[in-house]
């Protein structure tokens, strides 16, 4: 018996892109992370990371706030509720996708 086809079009491409997936994974595991931490974790250049964060921000998945911790200037990134839900759905979708195509 053949398994039902997997609707690949349903995948959230905003999160599916590898660099943005790493960003979303980090931000989902914590309350917030700053630009420098994300840059080290993803290995992206400043420009690339900015571009990916802007895409996530435009999609309503991430908020970006410039602030200080003591005298240290920080660019704090946080996953929104919508972003967390999208990440949860993405993981679920991925697991189901692999199960169906096995």
């Amino acid at each position: 018996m053949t398994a039902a086809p997997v609707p690949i079009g349903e995948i959230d491409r905003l999160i599916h892109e590898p660099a943005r997936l790493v960003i979303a994974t980090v931000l989902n595991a914590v309350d917030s992370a700053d630009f420098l931490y994300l840059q080290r974790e993803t290995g992206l250049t400043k420009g690339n990371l900015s571009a990916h964060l802007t895409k996530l921000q435009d999609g309503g998945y991430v908020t970006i706030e410039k602030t200080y911790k003591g005298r240290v200037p920080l660019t704090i990134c946080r996953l929104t509720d919508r972003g967390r839900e999208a990440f949860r759905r993405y993981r679920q979708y991925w697991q189901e996708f692999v199960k169906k195509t096995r």
Partner: protein
Amino acid sequence: MTDQNLENANAHDIKRIERRTVRYGFEDGILEIALGVFAVILGLFFLGSGLAPEKSTARFIFDVGFLPVFLAGYWAARKLAQSLKQHLTYPRTGYLAYKRPEKAKRIKRALLAGISAGLIAALATALFTSLPSRFDWVPAFTGLIFGVTLVVRSLRTGLVRVAIAAVLTAAAGVGLSLAGWAPGLELAAFYGAVGVMALISGLLGLRAYLRRNPLPEEGSR
């Protein structure tokens, strides 16, 4: 790559990243330094308490002073950790804020902790009465509780030095109980030893962290 590998790779990568975020808070050794300072403060308190003569004013002050000293020590250690992280960690490898559990979960956890503490105290009392009374078993018991906590932390973070600290802490507690020193001084020695061990481990961790992570160039944040 097979489907199973693909699934494992994705799940593994996500889990690896999540684990690294948990581990990040401990990598620089600063939390161990703060814990060391806190333990040394408690050790000094128990030393003073153990040396104060029975029924003296000093002993009375020590008896009523435990909670304020505990809270002040905790506050000082927390401030120290925050300050060191702000000056050393955040400019080098970035800032992470961990999730705080929701209020309902925090209340549930506090209740669970209270109940567990009560059960542990009851268990300890039952255990102490059945063990040879010539020894003070409080340091051994405290050491084992600390040891278990550190083992759990080591499994979560994958840091070997935390696992070593767990073994040494438990061993110090049992050793001090069997040493048969005057009551009170054993606890002073236990907290002093734990504090010094945590300070050494934290300072070594911090040194390694600083060597691995020089300050990035200006304007990279």
